[in-house]
């Protein structure tokens, strides 16, 4: 590498700073609002004039937030596990086996990945009401799994192609059936790809709003993003800015943790299926 001139150094430092500031300011604004008292909220400065933990203690003791948060976590985890298991099976078949109709499967996944969600909301709403799935966990888990599958099949088949398949051959020579070879040899090697896929699917479930407000009517299945709009302020005349900001921060924390720990994997997963020259 050529020597870095001081000018280059300042230039890149500025660029880095701008990127970090633009990425963080809206998040810091939420953090600031979440620590403001109801009177301090009326002050547009970033540093709260009066600090309080009240917004957090308020939402974390209210079933209006705790229950949806539990729903978000539960529905997200169950959907992710199911989607990753089903997608792994399909991706293994796509990456490794010869069978007709493979192109059809890929085409279908691609179509679903690009599907306008709203187009499904009306019919699914009607179907879910008829089947008694409306406002239940399965009522959200089933569509989440469906929309996690294309993402999963896409990312996982890209990961599966990187695996040294000679090992599978060796296992077969040793007398393992294709299924045993998959479970005992390949699945452990595929684990990193599955973790990555799991993170992406979970983020998508955690992020969903449209399905969550459409297929729920009470806190028994409503997820956290959908529940925030129903928060109330201290009185009828107070807008619940502080509590909503605190809830937004709480549901953002897992994301920040994921990003900090799995940054490399998230990047690999997001770009694996999409761009290969």
């Amino acid at each position, binding site marked *: 590498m050529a020597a870095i001139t001081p000018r280059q150094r300042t230039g890149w430092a500025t660029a880095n700073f701008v990127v970090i500031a633009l990425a963080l300011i809206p998040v810091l604004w939420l953090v600031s609002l979440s620590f403001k008292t109801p009177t301090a909220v009326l002050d547009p400065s970033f540093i709260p004039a009066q600090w309080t933990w009240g917004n957090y203690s308020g939402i974390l003791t209210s079933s209006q937030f705790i229950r949806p948060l539990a729903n978000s976590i539960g529905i997200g985890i169950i959907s992710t596990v199911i989607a990753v298991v089903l997608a792994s*099976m399909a991706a293994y078949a796509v990456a490794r086996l010869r069978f007709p109709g493979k192109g059809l499967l890929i085409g279908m996944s691609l179509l679903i990945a690009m599907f306008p969600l709203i187009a499904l909301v009306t019919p699914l709403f009607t179907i879910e009401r008829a089947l008694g799935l409306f406002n239940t966990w399965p009522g959200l888990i089933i569509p989440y799994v469906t929309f996690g599958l294309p993402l999963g099949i896409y990312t996982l088949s890209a990961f599966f192609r990187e695996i040294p398949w*000679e090992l599978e*051959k060796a296992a077969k020579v040793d007398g393992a059936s294709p299924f045993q070879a998959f479970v005992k040899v390949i699945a452990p090697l595929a684990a990193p790809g599955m973790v990555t896929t799991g993170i992406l699917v979970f983020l998508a479930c955690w992020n969903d709003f449209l399905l969550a407000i459409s297929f729920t009517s009470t806190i028994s299945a409503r997820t956290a993003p959908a529940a925030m709009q129903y928060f109330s302020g201290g009185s009828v005349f107070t807008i619940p800015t502080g509590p909503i900001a605190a809830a937004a921060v709480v549901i953002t924390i897992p994301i920040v943790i994921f990003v900090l720990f799995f*940054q490399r994997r998230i990047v690999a997963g997001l770009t694996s299926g999409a761009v290969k020259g």
Partner: protein
Amino acid sequence: MSTTETVTAGAPAEAPPKGKPQLSEGARAERRLGFMLIAPAVIVMIAVTAYPVVYAIYLSLERYNLALPQAKKFIGFANYGAVLSSPYWWHALYVTVVITVFSVAITLVLGFLLAFVLHRTIFGRGLVRTTSLIPYGIVTVAAAYSWQYAWTPGQGYLSSIFNNSAPLTNQFQAIVVIIIAEIWKTTPFMALLLLAGLSLVPEDLQKAAKVDGATGWQRFTKITLPLMKPAILVALLFRTLDSFRIFDNIYILTLGANGTGSVSILGYDNLFNALNLGIGSTISILIFICVAIIAFLFIKGFGTAAPGTDIGKR
């Protein structure tokens, strides 16, 4: 991702090509396993998407209002006539197209800038990469609340910078705010896709051009851009289709008030406020057709570089 040409190392390589009547025992077992492995995923996807879409087509041909269930009746294409002659539909479509075009175009430019910073920055690369992923990961609704409060007159930092303006109550300004929120949220994703394409551009080529006296801009337009075309088109397709179904940001920021509703907001309103399943389904089908047209145009533009055709042939 057409992998039909991949030679399967673990399977008998002499398996006869399909179409021949006789399949070896191994090939048949492999087929069976393949079908078994994809079956659960395929069944779920068909049950939750294909079937509802067909059902939506059927619903769209009916007069069906949940408030007036006894008036349910098959009315053919009358719902389509009603929607397509309604100014609400065309206005929502117009708003959606404006938001999509501007947010995707600006995101592409900013995504490039961000990708360059992530690719080239000399120090602090890990920190910048991690931080720039946060907008991608953050729940759209949470971010939308941040923008809404930032633009609330008397309370928000952005509003106070702009003379206590209240942009969310004005159609044009509200759409600008919605576009900003979209751009902030999606630029990191765009940058990541572009970055993956950028890392495929050989360094030697850049150096050679530099030696030959090409300016930075020339190297960008003559080397980087052409080589990145597939990556750019994939990123644009994903972002366009994603942006076309914009819902969360508008719902939180304006609820579609003052003529800022997208087609998704219109569909949602017809279903949950008007309880009109017939019209709601019609709007769903029309949105689906729009998305299909966008995808078709892009894939025509892709040529052989369509996602899925190039992967696996390495």
